């Protein structure tokens, strides 16, 4: 692992010591390999209208045209036309699309990883409906195969491979749960051989937000459900999904699903984590290879259902709040009503952010950006957008439903000495359960 800079002065990290040509080929072949009709249609459809720029927080806050979402795909667009597109032989024969060089890939590393949170706001702005965020993920796969990934993300990748989680060794998981239970005085279930509900976690809960581990336990206990945490398959955040390490993504997916099925669970509850929702709710079946006989739901959906069905009753807080919609949950996941219903049940008067729901701005830290220290300056720029919109609501509570968003926004608040606490919807529910 080495940090380097391109001739044009752009920083990039590189892993391994393969020759450049080999890396380049690996990147392009990996990109080409997973090309399905939808991705091809989207690769063919760009009009270069520039609308995606107006949707991207990194462009809007810097006004640097290189952050235009579609520009982040340039090397892969070239590769597509040269290797996959219907006119590929013509392109190659006439030399219409230059073969992508390693220098271009090196230069694009920062655009694909530092300046994209996979938030998909550009997808909604695109008049052709090009799912740019999905294409960026395909491109990241190519970058991963070339060994051109930010070192911090690669470190998490290797950790996850070794430990089963980027946050903690699987061996320590049960202890962390038990310690949290003791500290917060909540009875916890871990590694029960059989259970109806399997609770999964993301690194945020295992490090900074350990209270979340017992918050959900408290709720499930209250509801009298048969549930467990499980050391064999607890990690839901799936770093492979973010890094473009599809092999790892598949491995993590299978591990989590197989374990839940082995326990005989009918429902797998995902933590307050956006990417976990994308990876498990929408992509797991792709890697599992068939439909999964298991209900996979997000924490927020679970809370929403439980409140709606009256299985949990909440004490009204009676204050005002605004809500930050995690991108993977709202925009790319379709969950916008559940958190609002829960806030309502909490007696919080909701004032929406100027841009909210499917159109909310990203916290700026998704897609691994928050873990990638090289991206800090960009991330803080993006934070300012969110800060302005939150301030404009003039509310008492600032709530979200994703641990990564929470960490990103908390870091931003700290940086700008902004006196706002970012609260978790789960925590608010757990703290206000009616006895």
């Amino acid at each position, binding site marked *: 692992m080495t940090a380097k800079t391109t001739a044009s002065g752009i920083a990039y990290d590189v892993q391994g010591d393969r020759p450049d040509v080999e890396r380049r080929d*690996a990147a*392009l*072949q990996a990109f080409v*390999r997973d090309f399905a009709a939808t991705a091809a249609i989207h690769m063919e459809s760009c009009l270069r209208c520039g609308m995606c720029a107006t949707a991207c927080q990194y462009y809007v806050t810097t006004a640097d045209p290189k952050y235009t979402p579609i520009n982040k795909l340039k090397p892969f667009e070239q590769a597509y036309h040269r290797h996959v597109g*219907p*006119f590929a*032989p013509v392109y190659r024969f006439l030399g219409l699309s230059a073969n992508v060089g390693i220098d271009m890939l090196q230069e694009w590393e920062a655009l694909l990883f530092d300046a994209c949170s996979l938030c998909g706001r550009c997808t909604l702005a695109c008049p052709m409906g090009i799912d740019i965020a999905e294409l960026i993920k395909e491109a990241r796969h190519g970058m991963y195969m070339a060994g051109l990934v930010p070192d911090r993300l690669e470190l998490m990748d290797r950790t996850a491979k070794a430990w089963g989680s980027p946050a903690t060794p699987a061996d320590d998981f049960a202890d962390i749960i038990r310690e949290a239970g003791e500290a917060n005085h909540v009875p916890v279930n871990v590694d029960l051989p059989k259970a109806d509900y399997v609770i999964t976690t993301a690194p945020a809960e295992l490090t900074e937000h350990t209270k979340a581990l017992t918050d959900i336990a408290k709720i499930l206990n209250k509801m009298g459900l048969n549930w467990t945490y499980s050391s064999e398959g607890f990690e839901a955040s799936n770093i492979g999904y973010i890094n473009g390490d599809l*092999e790892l993504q598949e491995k993590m997916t299978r591990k989590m699903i197989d374990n839940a099925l082995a326990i005989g669970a009918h429902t797998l509850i995902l933590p307050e984590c956006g990417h976990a929702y994308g990876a498990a709710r929408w992509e797991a079946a792709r890697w599992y290879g068939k439909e999964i006989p298991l209900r996979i739901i997000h924490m927020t959906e679970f809370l929403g259902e439980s409140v709606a069905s009256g299985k949990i009753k909440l004490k009204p807080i009676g204050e005002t709040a605004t809500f930050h919609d995690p991108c993977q949950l709202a925009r790319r996941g379709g969950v916008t009503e559940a958190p609002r219903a829960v806030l309502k049940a909490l007696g919080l008067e909701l004032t929406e952010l100027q841009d909210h729901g499917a159109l909310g701005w990203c916290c700026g830290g998704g897609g691994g950006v928050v873990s990638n220290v090289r991206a800090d300056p960009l991330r803080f720029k993006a934070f300012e957008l969110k800060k302005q919109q939150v301030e404009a609501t003039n509310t008492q509570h600032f709530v979200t439903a994703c641990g990564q968003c929470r960490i990103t926004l908390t870091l931003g608040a700290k940086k700008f000495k902004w006196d706002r606490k970012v609260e978790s919807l789960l925590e608010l529910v757990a703290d206000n359960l009616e006895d």
Partner: protein
Amino acid sequence: MKHDETLDALIERRGVSRRAFLKYASYVATLMALPPGSAAALAEGLAKAKRQSVIWLSFQECTGCTESITRSSSPTLENLIFNFISLDYHHTLMAVSGEAAERARVEAMQANKGKYIVVVDGAVPTKDGGVYSTIAGVSNLQMLEETLRDAYAVVAVGTCAAFGGIPKADPNPTGAVAISELSGGKPLINIPGCPPIPEAMTGVLSYVLSFGKLPELDHFGRPKAFYGETIHDRCYRRPFYERGLFADGFDDEGARQGYCLYKLGCKGPTTYNACATLKWNGGVSFPIQSGHGCLGCSEPDFWDRGGFYRPLPTPLGAMGPALAGAAIAGAALGIGAAVAARSHRNGASATTGKDKE
């Protein structure tokens, strides 16, 4: 009537008033859009003009042009112009025939060497040595060449002479060509039309007689005065075109309302002629006024432009086979490209697999 009699004298002899003559001169001047004051000059020139020797050759034609020009409904000054010229040879009209007729032509050529005008109606077949049309054993090709040799100018009357017309229409079995291709640099005026408007013919002759030169011509050798504007631009149905009101059939409500005939294949927009202004039969009507679209008869190749009832903006020719072939080829290439991309994928997959180890 002698060759040296002036038009003046002829008019007087026929009892036409001076006033009527001046009226005609100003009419022609107006028709030909001559500058103001030219009417007087034209009248003066015409009055003093001597009888012009004209040799009229009819080749591959239907005699329609001659019919059109000679059959005026009433005796007019236009007839007079025809009367005035010395039509020394016109095998349709002349009284004599056979060798006597051919002798008249040769005599006229010798008597007016360098001064006579050759009027031609009909195209000239050139295939197989021109055997497809002969007069008195002489091929049209040869007769034209001979007659043109000492001519002052040549006037191609009718579309066959001007552009080859119907004889030249696809597949042109006789190798018919327009006079312009055989005129060998002689001054040439084309007065196309099937048939041409009589006034265009007499107007041009009056101009030549009066001013002793050719009128201004367009790139097809047509007098701009008569062929300077399209039928469409001067058509009285034009407002319907602009408003999007069209007849869709010859017997529909639009046709009864006198709407534009564009959809029925009218070639007015690309046809340069004076029909819409001068009209026919003494200004009574013209095809569009009678309910039929313009055929474009004063334009080259009017017979081969995809059919008289094919609207102007439609493609020419049958493109079905070409498009069907293209569709099959396109589908095959598309499938081929996808198969290639898939195998490229699989190949790449194998390589990446190796790459991982």
